[in-house]
C-alpha cells in the first residue's frame, strides 16, 4: 500500500536563539490518538490475510492443479500478508515489495518480530518499485488494497501488469483486489465501529467523473474523542473492471476471472449488507452500491 513519505525531523535553526528562561510546557495527558500506531490500526481495521489466503489457495488449486508455494506481495506495507502466508505452510516463502523504507522497517520490527521465527525467516522484504522485473519468479503475485490505482495511465498500469506477468512462473497467477459500485464514485465518508470503541473512517474526499481520479483518506476516532485524522491518504485512479480486463490481456495474461465477495444482511430487517469473506466467481454482475472483489489473471 502507498504510504505518505516519512516526516522529516524538524531542522534545527542555523543560528542559536538567545537563551531564554526555559518554560516547562504544561504537559497534557496524551490522548489515545497520540499513543496510537497507525500501522497497527491499519492492520487491524483493513486487513484479513487469512481469508485472502484461503481464497487464493482454492482458486490456484482449481486452475493449476497444485498448491502455490511462493508469493509476492506488492505494495506490501507492513507485510502482514507475507507473514501470514509463511505461517500457513513450512515450505512457503514470501517476497514483500514496497517503495517506502520506514514502512518496511515497521514491518520487520513488528509484523515479522511477532511471527514465529521459522515463518519470519522465510519472508524477504525489499524496498523496490513493483515494476522491477528482477525480483525473481513467484507462483502467485498479489496486489491488494487497490494500491495499483496509483498508476493513473494505461501505459503505467499495463507496464506494471506486464512486469508482474514476467515475474510469474509459467503457471503463475496474479491477483488484483478491486472495489466499485455507485457509492465508490461519489464523495462520502463511511464509518465502521470496531471493538473497544474504535471507529475506522474511510473518506472519499474527491471523485472526479471526468478522469476517475479519487482522493481518499483513512482516519480513526478513539473512545476518548481523540482522532488520528487522515493517517493515510490515497491519490488514485479508480479503474473499472472492463479496463482492468483489457489491460491484463494487453499485458499478455491468457485468462481473466472475476470474483465478488458475497454479502448478506445481518438480520432480516437490516438494509445494510455485510461482507462474508467468501468470494464467488461471476461472469456478469448487476451493479450495487458497493462491491469488493478480486480479479485473477492466469499467465
Amino acid at each position, binding site marked *: 500500500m502507498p504510504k505518505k513519505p516519512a516526516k522529516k525531523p524538524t531542522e534545527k535553526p542555523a543560528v542559536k536563539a538567545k537563551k531564554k528562561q526555559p518554560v516547562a510546557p504544561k504537559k497534557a495527558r496524551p490522548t489515545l490518538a497520540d499513543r496510537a500506531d497507525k500501522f497497527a490500526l491499519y492492520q487491524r481495521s483493513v486487513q484479513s490475510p487469512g481469508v485472502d489466503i484461503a481464497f487464493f489457495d482454492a482458486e490456484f488449486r482449481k486452475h493449476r492443479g497444485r498448491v502455490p508455494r511462493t508469493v509476492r506481495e506488492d505494495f506490501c506495507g507492513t507485510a502482514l500478508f507475507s507473514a501470514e502466508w509463511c505461517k500457513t505452510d513450512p515450505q512457503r516463502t514470501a517476497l514483500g515489495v514496497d517503495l517506502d523504507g520506514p514502512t518496511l522497517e515497521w514491518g520487520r520490527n513488528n509484523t515479522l518480530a511477532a511471527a514465529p521465527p521459522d515463518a519470519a525467516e522465510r519472508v524477504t522484504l525489499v524496498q523496490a518499485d513493483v515494476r522491477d522485473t528482477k525480483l525473481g519468479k513467484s507462483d502467485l503475485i498479489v496486489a491488494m488494497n487497490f494500491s495499483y490505482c496509483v498508476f493513473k495511465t494505461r501505459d503505467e498500469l499495463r507496464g506494471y501488469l506486464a512486469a508482474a506477468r514476467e515475474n510469474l512462473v509459467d503457471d503463475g497467477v496474479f491477483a488484483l483486489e478491486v472495489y466499485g459500485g*455507485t457509492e465508490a*464514485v*461519489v464523495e462520502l465518508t463511511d464509518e465502521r465501529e470496531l471493538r473497544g470503541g474504535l471507529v475506522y473512517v474511510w473518506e472519499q474526499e474527491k471523485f472526479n467523473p471526468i478522469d476517475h481520479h479519487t482522493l481518499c483518506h483513512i482516519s480513526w476516532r478513539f473512545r476518548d474523542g481523540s482522532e488520528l485524522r487522515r493517517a493515510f491518504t490515497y491519490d488514485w485512479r479508480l479503474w473499472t*473492471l472492463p*479496463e482492468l480486463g483489457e489491460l491484463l490481456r494487453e499485458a499478455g495474461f491468457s485468462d481473466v476471472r472475476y470474483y465478488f465477495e458475497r454479502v448478506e444482511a445481518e438480520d432480516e430487517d437490516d438494509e445494510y449488507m455485510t461482507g462474508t469473506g467468501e468470494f464467488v466467481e461471476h461472469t456478469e454482475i448487476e*451493479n450495487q452500491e458497493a462491491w469488493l472483489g478480486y480479479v485473477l489473471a492466469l499467465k
Partner: protein
Amino acid sequence: MTARPAKPKPAARPKTQAAQADKHALYERAVQDPASDVKFFTRTYRKLRGADPVSLREDFCGTAVLCLAWAKSSGERTAVGVDLSQETINWGLEHRIVPAGREVASRISLLCADVREVKKPKVDVACALNFSYYCFKQRQDLLDYLRAVHAGLNKDGVFFMDLLGGTEAIIEGSVDNDHGEFIYRWEQARFDALTHDFLCHIHFLFPDGSKLLNAFTYDWRLWMAPELRDLLLEAGFSRVHFYWEKTNAEGEGTGSFYEPDYVENQEIWWTYLAAER
C-alpha cells in the same frame, strides 16, 4: 331471387394513439435538440480554431435533423449524414430534408454506410451524438471508429461526442418524461459492472393508454469519460476537452457549457466532449 343483403362492414375500430404514432417523429421531439448542438459546435470550434466551421459530418445520423439544422444555420454550410439504416434515412429525406426546399437540401447528402468506412469528404466538424457509438463494445472496434473519424477530418477538424454518466447511469431503472401528448420512457434494463454492457429501451406511452413499447432498443457498452480520453488520444487526436453544463440557482441546466478540470459526480449527467485533430 332476392339479393342477399350485403353484410354490414364491421365498424372500423378507431386506431389507438400508439398505432397512429410515428416513432421517428416522437424520438426527435423527446430526445433531440439539433439547434443547441449546432450552436455548441459553432461556438466551441470558434474558440478552439478561431474560425467558423463550414462542413459537418453527422455519424449515426438517423433522420438527419442535425444535418438539416446545420445546413439551415448558414448558406455556406454543408452536411453529410451517415447511418446504417436506409429506412431511417428515407424517412428523414421524405419528412425533413426534401420539405426544407431544394437550396438547403442540395447542401445535404445522406449515406447509408458503416461510419468506419466513410473517409470523404473531409469535414471541419464530425460528431457522434445520442451515444450511438456505444454500439462498439470492444475497445478495438471503438478505436477503429475513432481512427476513421480522425482520418476524415480536415487539418483543423474537431470531433464532438456526447456521453452519459453519474451514479444512476450505472444501474438498472427507468425514468419518465411527460411531453403532454405522450410520455417518453427511458429504461436501463441491464447494466453489467463487469463488462459495462448496457441494455436500454425507449418506450412511448399515450393518454389513451396505448403504448409503443421497445420503440428503440440499444445494446451498448457504457464508455466512461477517461476511457474515451484514452481512446481518442490513442486514435491520434491531439487534445480532448470535456465540457460541463452550467446550472442555475435551482440546479437546472442553462444550456451554457464550461470546461472544468474537476467536477463532483452527480446522479445523472450527459455532456459533450470535443477532440481536436
